[in-house]
């Protein structure tokens, strides 16, 4: 199964034709980074370095340099989430997917954010979004949070500065693994985390969906990050800094 990644680039109102033309190259670079991440980290491709690592055919030392970076980041995320996000507790062995999708999108964004003449850019990896800048009008990006009880509706709207990730079981059935039991389980219908980096936001959102509202404490403790949970009964709870926008 694939993931569609959408790249949005907003040229500034004063962007020159040359700057606009140059954006294709920047977007291509961002796409190249995403394809590279897929080749290295895919748990679907049997020959990817991470698949071989999972089967024990190679050690971490034999993998490309970015694998070590991701492993270190996963350890940090496990720590920050107080164990609720744990790629080492996945059935089938170490699986960094919960971090990698956001990490890759964030790297792709970095390849775009330096482009001349843009007011803002967004990389949306199937509902997990990394962004920089603003709309050409100067307004911040606004992102809807899908309502887990009716995903065609929006539960909330956030004003985005940086990244937003949402985890939940509502669209694909129970699939979040509770690292403490190794079994499927989630204490929130949906969990959203905002913050500067999409990799960490994604990992924290995964942990928060499993932990439920009690997990908001670990999100709040991470500087620059905020969280929102929507319970199975629709109850919403959030950290004090959550960037709600007016509807």
């Amino acid at each position: 199964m694939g993931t569609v990644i959408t790249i949005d680039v907003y040229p500034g109102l004063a962007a020159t034709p040359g700057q606009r033309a140059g954006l294709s190259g920047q977007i291509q670079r961002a796409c190249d980074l995403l394809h590279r991440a897929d080749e290295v980290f895919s748990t679907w491709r049997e020959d990817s370095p991470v698949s071989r690592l999972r089967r024990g055919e190679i050690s971490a030392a034999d993998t490309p340099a970015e694998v070590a970076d991701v492993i270190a980041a996963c350890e940090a995320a496990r720590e920050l989430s107080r164990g609720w996000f744990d790629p080492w507790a996945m059935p089938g062995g170490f699986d960094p997917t919960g971090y990698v999708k956001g990490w890759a999108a964030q790297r792709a964004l970095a390849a775009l954010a330096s482009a001349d003449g843009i007011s803002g850019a967004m990389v949306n990896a199937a509902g997990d979004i990394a962004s920089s800048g603003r709309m050409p009008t100067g307004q911040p990006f606004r992102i809807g949070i899908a309502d887990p009880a009716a995903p065609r509706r929006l539960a909330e709207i956030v004003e985005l500065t940086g990244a937003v990730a949402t985890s939940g079981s509502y669209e694909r059935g129970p699939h979040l693994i509770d690292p403490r039991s190794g079994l499927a389980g989630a204490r929130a219908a949906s969990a959203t985390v905002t913050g500067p980096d999409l990799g960490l936001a994604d990992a924290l959102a995964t942990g928060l969906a499993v932990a439920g509202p009690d997990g908001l404490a670990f999100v709040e403790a991470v500087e620059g990050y905020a969280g929102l949970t929507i319970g199975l009964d629709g109850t919403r709870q959030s950290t004090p800094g959550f960037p709600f926008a007016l509807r």
Partner: protein
Amino acid sequence: MKRAPIVIAGTVVGLIGVLKFHTAPVSLASPAGSALPAASASGASPAASGSSQGGKASGASAGSASQQSGAGRSAVGPSVYYDYGTLSVRVTVSGHRIVKVALASLDDGSNARSQFIDQQSIPMLEQEVLQAQSANIQGVSGASYTSAGFAQSLQGALHSLGFA
């Protein structure tokens, strides 16, 4: 125990960059009150005319051409593979607003599960597009995967209209 689908679905696998150049704040520049296509087109066109040339999309100014007609212009996006088969999407725009989104073709292999999922998800996706527009947002965060092929074909259709 079976592997968790998040492991599967979360993978950055076979990804497709769906590229959008926003030549104007098309997404949703119009205030909530401007449900009438003509009103929203005139509201957004100053920005559009300044920036409609260049970029990959060829001109949001097309919106101003269609505002008189009222009926809008429509296009069918590419036929796209998704999890259960192939589909394509037809979109109708008027001014700077999407006024209608519908499935133009669907081949889901006619098996019961695919049909069930499609019956559930496709009306929802059509609705989602229109709702996103009225909420003045630039994206949706959520655990949504069935929408991938739909979004891709929609994007293609919008591109062919010079809309997004």
